């Protein structure tokens, strides 16, 4: 992975392809790569859909090797949804394939002169780009079928659906999974709209004739990989809970805690939670059967396999197993307790290329505005279809919860920096609210997932029972998350490395064995800190101030049932998060 591929879509005479060495970007991967390129090369005040914005797609540091869990990929740009820097990451096969092809990043830049749509082919012989307007407004599923027919059965795709072509702020970029379906998405912040603004519909990847990347210290790498996999397999979360139930196992538990945002964040418990939780979903998938039904991975090399495949009652494929956030956003948040309806929405979202979290939150706001009744699953499905049709209402909805709230005069709009909150109510779990408020990404659940602060030794040890613990922990978690995102590892490794120091050491050894350097916990911490500082600096130059690091006012005023709590972390405390 010693090459950066740049495609200038605005070059005179049509798109111009350039491959260049890593230069200053050597040693970076995933989020560290995307955020560093964006911060250095994109003018912070540019229009996100204009010629100066760049879309950066970067595999993780170990992608393309045989390291377990190493196939996540990062997408970065200036976000059309938040107006700040964005990193959205995804599973799927393309990360491993790009790694094997030697690409550390793909950068789409410039802006085409007209609305011609392009397809890009990357294989061992190089890169080719061609105009193809027959792809216009194709859904991701039909698009992938067409690319397979044209380029062979083994190719994988990075693509946008109609959402990206319409440049909607909720538009995603799809990455095909192991079964070559477009089910994995870099979903948040409207990254698909930026790809649409570059006029690129699809990047087709064919890694035939390439081989896996070899580590610098094969013995160390092999031993560390073995230890790392053993650690993941023996931990109850990564070895049992996630494979059996997927991330949706959280539904019943978060609901029991009174932290499950229900009917557009108007209550903390949903009476239909047990009908849509991971246990019910696994039971349904197991009884319906089918290939990869209850347990499946999103890319080769995943040993946790938190995903699955959703078939309808007649055994027909519908979509991948919906994740916790998707089930929440389109389920409890809209008062819907029907897994088949939620799976249909997930399929529609994936096909249109729109973010399941943002769209679920938007439908919740639309229901509050009276466009549909809470609990009416058919109405929710119709609203998503409306987005695909590109009607005026559909375009409002497709631009997210904040836009919809403004259009319809709704006060209860659960967003930070215009991005909708995921599936935990910050009034009940206020430490997570600190992260929602202050992350550089806009309200984001993954920005606070991570390895423990004391393991990484970030910012000293924290007394978790002191009030200020919430701010310190949020800061440390954000640093650690940025570091993990930069390795390209799936964040679900967090639990095993949280609980098992030997598994954390195995991860460090894996990275060291691959790169040939001696990586310590301090190095990982320094990487996370530097990524966050880079992102924060970009946002400041884009005009963000501490006033943007706030939750909407109603979280401080409206008490959430059943605990009757409001968000009580002060602005002064929030402003401490980035003191490092």
């Amino acid at each position: 992975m010693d090459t950066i591929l740049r495609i200038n879509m605005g070059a005179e005479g049509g798109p111009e392809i350039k491959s260049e060495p890593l230069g200053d970007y050597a040693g970076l991967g995933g989020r560290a790569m995307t955020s560093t390129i964006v911060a250095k090369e994109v003018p912070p005040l540019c229009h996100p859909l204009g010629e100066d914005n760049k879309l950066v797609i970067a595999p993780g540091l170990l992608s393309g090797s045989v390291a377990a869990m190493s196939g996540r990929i990062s997408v970065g740009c200036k976000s059309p949804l938040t107006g700040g820097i964005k990193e959205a990451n995804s599973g799927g096969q393309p990360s491993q394939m790009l790694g094997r092809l030697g690409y550390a990043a793909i950068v789409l830049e410039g802006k085409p002169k007209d609305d011609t749509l392009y397809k890009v082919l990357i294989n061992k012989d190089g890169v080719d780009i061609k105009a193809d307007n027959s792809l216009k407004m194709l859904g991701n599923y039909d698009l992938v079928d067409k690319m397979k027919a044209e380029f062979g059965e083994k190719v994988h795709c990075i693509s946008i659906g109609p959402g990206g072509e319409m440049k909607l702020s909720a538009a995603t970029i799809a990455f095909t999974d192991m079964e070559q379906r477009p089910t994995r998405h870099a979903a948040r912040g409207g990254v698909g709209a930026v790809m649409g603004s570059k006029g690129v519909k699809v990047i087709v990847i064919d890694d035939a004739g390439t081989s896996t990347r070899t580590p610098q210290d094969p013995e160390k790498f092999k031993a560390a990989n073995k230890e790392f996999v053993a650690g993941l397999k023996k931990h109850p979360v990564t070895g049992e809970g996630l494979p059996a139930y997927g991330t949706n196992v959280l539904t019943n538990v978060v609901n029991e805690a009174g932290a499950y945002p229900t009917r557009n964040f108007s209550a903390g418990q949903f009476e239909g939670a047990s009908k849509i939780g991971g246990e019910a979903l696994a039971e349904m998938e197991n009884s319906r059967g089918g290939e990869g039904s209850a347990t499946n991975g999103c890319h080769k090399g995943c040993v946790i396999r938190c995903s699955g495949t959703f078939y309808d009652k007649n055994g027909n494929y519908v979509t991948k197993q919906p994740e916790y956030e998707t089930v929440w956003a389109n389920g409890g948040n809209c008062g819907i307790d029907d897994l088949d309806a939620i799976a249909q929405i997930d399929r529609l979202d994936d096909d249109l290329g729109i973010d399941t979290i943002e769209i679920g939150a938007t439908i919740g706001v639309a229901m509050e505005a009276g466009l549909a009744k809470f609990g009416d699953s058919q109405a929710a499905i119709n609203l998503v279809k409306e987005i695909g049709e590109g009607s005026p209402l559909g375009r409002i909805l497709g631009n997210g919860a904040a836009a919809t709230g403004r259009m319809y005069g709704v006060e209860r709009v659960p967003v930070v920096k215009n991005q909708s909150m995921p599936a935990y109510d910050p009034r009940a779990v206020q430490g997570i609210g600190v992260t929602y408020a202050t992350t550089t990404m806009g309200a984001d659940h993954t920005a606070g997932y991570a390895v423990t602060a004391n393991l990484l030794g970030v910012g000293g040890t924290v007394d978790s029972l002191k009030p200020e613990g919430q701010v310190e922990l949020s800061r440390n978690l954000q640093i650690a998350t940025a570091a993990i995102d930069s390795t390209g590892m799936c964040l679900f490794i967090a639990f095993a490395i949280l609980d098992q120091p030997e598994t954390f050491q195995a991860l460090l050894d894996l990275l060291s064995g691959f790169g040939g350097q001696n990586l310590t916990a301090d190095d990982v911490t320094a990487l996370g800190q530097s990524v966050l500082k880079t992102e924060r600096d970009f946002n400041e130059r884009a005009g963000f101030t501490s006033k943007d690091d706030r939750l909407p006012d109603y979280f401080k005023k409206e008490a959430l049932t059943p605990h009757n709590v409001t968000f009580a972390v002060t602005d002064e405390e929030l402003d401490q998060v980035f003191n490092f």
Partner: protein
Amino acid sequence: MANTDSSISAETADQPPSLHLVLRVTDELLPLFCHLAEQGFEVEIQTGGSVREVLCRQLGIDEDYLDQRIQTIFLNAKAVDDVDSTRVDSGATLALSGAMPGLMGATLRKGGFFASLRRQISCDKNDRPPGSATASIIVKLFNLVAAELGPAFLQKGVHIKGQNFQEVLHRHLDKLAGAGASCELGQKAITLKDLAEVDLVDKMIFLRVAVKSPPVPL
């Protein structure tokens, strides 16, 4: 689970008497009913004891299982950190779960490093002197805990809402009938089809699921 003399089959004072229902199924069908444990069942306990005392000494859950496998506990929707100093009173709802993924999972975990992130919904230690009485509480079992402890509770018998049972019955009627399941309502044999017609919506039932193979030891 260890042996227990818990009175989980007793009627409760403030509920209408339960309909008694016995289902006889082959053991591979038992997990179909674990979903009921998620929605909660009533058990009768001596109040005033700690969470550990109630779960282990009254309901028979093994102490090692509580310490290692049950990673997340809620008492009346509040996260429990210390099972030895948190007391269970009359009318409580006690929910038990395995370890959960992600930051939220780490945050809700009992006594976990991230407990301060949810301190507003943490269970306070209860320092009042215990007053002991017989009372019913609701127990909910989630995920791996439901799969592992649910069968034993179901075989002993649980008080549940009739509506919850009916939903499970309707969902799996064909499968149960196909596998030769039989049932008795109030000690009288009844076909599954007829049972599916009985209106249980506003009723409490006492359900015991008997298996045709050796039972899982409590």
